[in-house]
């Protein structure tokens, strides 16, 4: 797939995304750690790449851990929903639903599992129901991810999974990611799978992870790209003003974008 370079220069980073996805350099890296400070544009870059994937019909799923409230089943649900339309994943769903047995108990309440419903007879909020739900999800996670990774290893399908705001993910999520997703991304297992993890505070990869992780930081914004961007938003702004904004705020893309947006309130395009 080819992508259109964005208006504002993030082509360097997107080229890295793309090279890893296409395995054009094929160093066996399939996990990209995007680390940078607040307001530098990590989330916008992630959203930009998500949009680009969708436009090019590449199966992509984006999960943002902001707020710290997601649990593994929420993440799995998002991934499953995003990948559902892609035909090769039918096998995933078949495995998912054939592996999870319906609990052999009487019926009064429903447990949702993806699109399937399991009827269960127990008091709502009973500890037991939660435990059952957890076990079901654990089983289904394994089944779905096995199918997903088998599919990529066989080269049948390509996938992109984007995780944002990693620093706010709960410990449970971090452990789950490590156990079920990141750890499966060894060079031997992966066909064409790109996993991007973006955040302010991501621990450096150690041990076996080093060989499948690549870490990048966002490139500083160049003056010419800034001018180009500012001009598109407000062409009546003087050259001097653009340069002064750049001189003062170039280390804070969010502030720069906010200033230009404020100068041109009717035509908002966000950048940082």
């Amino acid at each position, binding site marked *: 797939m080819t992508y259109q370079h964005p208006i504002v220069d993030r082509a360097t980073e997107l080229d890295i995304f793309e090279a890893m996805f296409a395995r054009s350099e094929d160093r066996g890296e399939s996990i990209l750690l995007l680390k940078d400070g607040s307001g530098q544009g990590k989330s916008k870059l992630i959203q930009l790449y998500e949009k680009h994937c969708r436009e090019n019909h590449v199966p992509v799923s984006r999960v943002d851990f902001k707020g710290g409230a997601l649990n593994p089943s929420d993440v799995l649900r998002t991934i499953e929903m995003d990948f559902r339309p892609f035909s090769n994943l039918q096998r995933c769903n078949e495995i998912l639903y054939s592996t999870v047995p319906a609990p052999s108990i009487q019926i009064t309440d429903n447990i949702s599992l993806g699109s399937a419903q399991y009827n269960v007879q127990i008091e709502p909020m009973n500890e037991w129901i939660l435990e059952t739900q957890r076990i079901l999800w654990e089983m289904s996670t394994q089944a779905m991810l096995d199918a997903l990774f088998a599919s990529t290893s066989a080269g049948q399908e390509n996938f992109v999974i984007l995780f944002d705001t990693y620093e706010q993910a709960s410990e449970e999520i971090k452990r789950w990611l490590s156990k079920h997703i990141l750890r499966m991304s060894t060079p031997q297992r992966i066909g064409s799978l790109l996993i991007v993890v973006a955040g302010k505070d991501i621990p450096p990869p150690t041990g076996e992870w080093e060989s499948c992780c690549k870490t990048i930081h966002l490139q500083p914004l160049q003056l010419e790209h800034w001018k180009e961007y500012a001009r598109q938003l407000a062409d009546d*702004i003087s050259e001097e003003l653009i340069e002064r904004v750049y001189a003062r705020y170039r280390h804070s893309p*969010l502030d720069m974008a906010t200033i230009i947006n*404020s100068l041109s309130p009717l035509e908002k395009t966000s950048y940082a």
Partner: protein
Amino acid sequence: MPDNFLEQLLAAKSAEEETKILLKMLPVNISRAAWAVAIPHWFNAEIIAILLPDMAAQAEDLYVQLQRQSFVEPFQDRGHNIHELTRKRILNLWWHERRPEYRRISESAHSFFSSKEGDIHAIEAAYHYLVSMTFDPEDTISRWNRIASQLKTSRQYALVHTLIQNTREHISGGRVPANMEGLVSQWERSFAKELVSIGKQHQKKEDWTSATEILDHAQKLYADLHDEKAQANILIKLGGSYFQKELSDRIFRELEQHKAAIADLNRTTVDSYRSQANLLRFSPSGRMREALSLRMGIIEIDPEDFDSHLAIVSMTKELDGNVPSIYMDKARQYVREGDWYALTCLESVCENFDLAFEHLKRAAQDENFDPAWAWKDPDLQWIRDTPHFLEIVGPKPEE
């Protein structure tokens, strides 16, 4: 206009002042909405209508307009939010310049989120309560306890961290009474204790997954409280769960994380790794190489740790048949004076058998000498199969 605007901006003395100027540049209704939606952690059209009831009719349109701002970003499954940098500045402005209105809007937010079902809404309501007009410090802890018991039922322990972090957000902004910091820490500590006890119950039931998860949360709370001793104690408990779940990679990762932090040597933490190394060494599923790696990690933290040097010598001999002299020399250097049992082990592993028996005789006179362990101790396997050993230690006790 733009040049004047920039002059004003460049003359600003703080990031807050810059933000105020930038918000002023927006159309009045969007600017007002931007101020208001910075108060909650996320917003959507429904929330805009609650925060600004006089603009409720325009809420949908304002929501769309706000999404076009650079400082607004999507909040998965909940709507959108003001970027954390901008939000922090706007909240400072609210508190210092428009406090009564801030309290009034927070009151509305508190009522709104309280009326919604679900843990996330209860936590957001608790956050707004702290700066609302009806805030009562005396009532805070019982409110949090109610939320905590709700979270224990739903097992959403991770949200406790959100509750605490949200409160700290107000504390660092100076928006709550000074004694709240102490109250939060006290509550956090007592909740961590409770989690430890729940974690232990799960360990007793051999539910290692739940035990690990719950103890992990407790450890995070103690880390937040900078209580290294409590953290170390949890590490010891967690070690058992990791071991049962064959999660030695977790033990190693924890060790890596703690290496720098405990350069000044937290004895209890090192002890926890020692006990985990022993668990691995004596595992029936043969995990001695992992135990060896862990011991290597321990001496990186504590280069004078005799036990680990001896264990490395002993395990290497058992696994590969040779005795690495560098570790043997270090073990000799750091063996505790008068610790006859340790000296027996060392000389046994180094095959200085006569010396080993001399030390063993002295060790056996100690009131703490444990003959049963001497019959099991792998360090003594090199001298055990002798009449001399039997004579000193006595007959092998029945299992």
